[in-house]
């Protein structure tokens, strides 16, 4: 048995972490308090965290006809969920091939795939637009969904996690007559809960907050995503910060829900006890 920490130690550690944690949520608090302030009081110096005049107009204004807040929100959910579902299969099976199967040129091909990470996406946005238009996917959700599915980061992530699953397990299954697809489904995937959760969580966050792709590739306001929609909260040549912060608060809700669900997969040592044999 691992020795229990003494209580004082636990309390001291908790206090330290709490201190760190509170420092980390200041932007969140600023966002929340600004969303209840009139526009001309948000930036008065020194900045007050408790609004002097407390208003809820910012939240009400989000649902004005002029903005399609609900529609953008729904579009984004559809987009993100589509990405996650397609990515789960395509990325994980590719990662399986790169970690568990041996074939000539495996390393070189992988480095070739990695190369797409090495270019700032904005730098190639114009060639991208030309190709996407030729494919007929501009001004549709797919112009955002498809490039995201073939994101190489998660192939890399899953590859590394799959690699730390001992080969002896799949060898045994192979001898029992299983093919590689079955090993992928029945052995590797079930053992990769934390990795898959990490992928789902970050895919969600990245796609949810992705601004550049929808901004460039989607034209029709009714097809737009919430990240771009938030930039529509402009008034008289400047940003309507009250509205923006209200929207940002509502936009954060699904992200927090996803993180809460993902949490339970990050508790040390629940998943793989007994693998290393």
């Amino acid at each position: 048995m691992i020795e229990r920490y003494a209580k004082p130690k636990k309390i001291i550690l908790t206090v330290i972490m709490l201190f760190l944690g509170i420092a980390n949520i200041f932007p969140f608090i600023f966002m929340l308090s600004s969303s209840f302030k009139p526009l001309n009081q948000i930036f008065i110096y020194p900045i007050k965290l408790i609004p002097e005049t407390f208003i809820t107009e910012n939240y009400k204004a989000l649902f004005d006809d002029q903005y399609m807040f609900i529609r953008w929100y729904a579009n984004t959910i559809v987009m993100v969920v589509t990405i996650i579902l397609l990515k789960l299969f395509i990325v994980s099976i590719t990662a399986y091939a790169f970690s568990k199967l041996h074939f000539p040129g495996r390393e070189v091909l992988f480095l070739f795939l990695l190369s797409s990470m090495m270019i700032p996406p904005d730098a190639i946005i114009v060639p991208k637009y030309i190709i996407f238009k030729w494919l007929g996917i501009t001004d549709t959700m797919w112009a955002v969904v498809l490039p995201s599915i073939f994101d190489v980061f998660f192939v890399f992530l899953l590859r590394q996690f799959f690699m730390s699953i001992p080969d002896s397990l799949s060898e045994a299954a192979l001898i029992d007559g299983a093919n590689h697809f079955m090993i992928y489904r029945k052995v590797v995937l079930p053992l990769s809960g934390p990795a898959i959760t990490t992928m789902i969580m970050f895919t969600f966050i990245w796609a949810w907050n992705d601004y550049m792709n929808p901004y460039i590739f989607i034209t029709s306001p009714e097809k737009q995503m919430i990240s771009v929609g938030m930039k529509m909260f402009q008034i008289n040549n400047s940003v309507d910060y009250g509205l923006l912060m209200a929207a940002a608060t509502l936009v954060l809700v699904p992200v927090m829900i996803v993180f809460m669900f993902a949490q339970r997969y990050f508790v040390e040592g629940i998943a793989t006890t007994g693998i290393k044999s």
Partner: protein
Amino acid sequence: MLSRKQREMYTAFAFIAPYLIGYLLFHFFPIFLSFIISVTDVRYISRIGDASFVGLRNYLELFSDTEFTNSVKNSLLFSIMYVPGVMLVGLVLAVLINKKLYARNLLRGMLFMPYVSNMVAVSVVWSLLMDPTGGVINNVLRSIGIDNPPMWLMSTKTSLVSVVIIAVWQGVGLQFVTFLAAFQNVPTELKEAAYIDGTNGFQNFIHVTLPCIRSQTFLLMITSVITSLKNYTIVQVLTEGGPGTSTTILPLNIVNTAFTSFRMGYACAQTVVMFVIVMAITVLQWSGRKRFED
């Protein structure tokens, strides 16, 4: 009848095929096109008919362009400070949160908040902290007797370091969570065995935990280097590359060249050079992977 080796190869290609097709279409072709544009003087893609082939002229110009060389220098400095910072902080946070704590779920959520916070809010809060004249940090420094506290984001000498501090604080969520996920590959028996052997917590960590998460560490090292050289959003939000050009990192310079100066060909040449630099670093790291993989 195919040999087992051949069967494995065909299976692998079948597994990779869907990804590869999508990758070529959505990532590789645009990159390839921009490589071609880099040897032309294209300014506007609609005027591609008027553009001419200029060979390596764009590349030669890069060497004498101080804005470009300066941005490469800034990018490398940024990366050298950012990568160790974000790896170390991520690891330490992950280790600490795995200790026995009260309200662990809440604390974990709080530590992750910067990663998903609105960038405008992040930028405002940090400018309150780092404001040279009335900011929280400098007020504290003055109260403990430091008369000339740093100017943080407002001086060319300290701006890059300040941006790195904020970028680490903001971006560490990825490393933090990945390490947390990786810790689950550490079998509890191993730790217990080590404990019975009489090692202390730190030795335990070095000899048991670290080896078990080495493949994830390798992933984070490579991708942190790449993303630190590629991403520029946080710099754009905090300083727009200033004061002067002290925080103009390479991707920012590329984007300015492409969309403020409208020199597409020249911007693409910079992109290619950047690609070569990042690729070289990655290959170098990759060749050391044997130490990280079984």
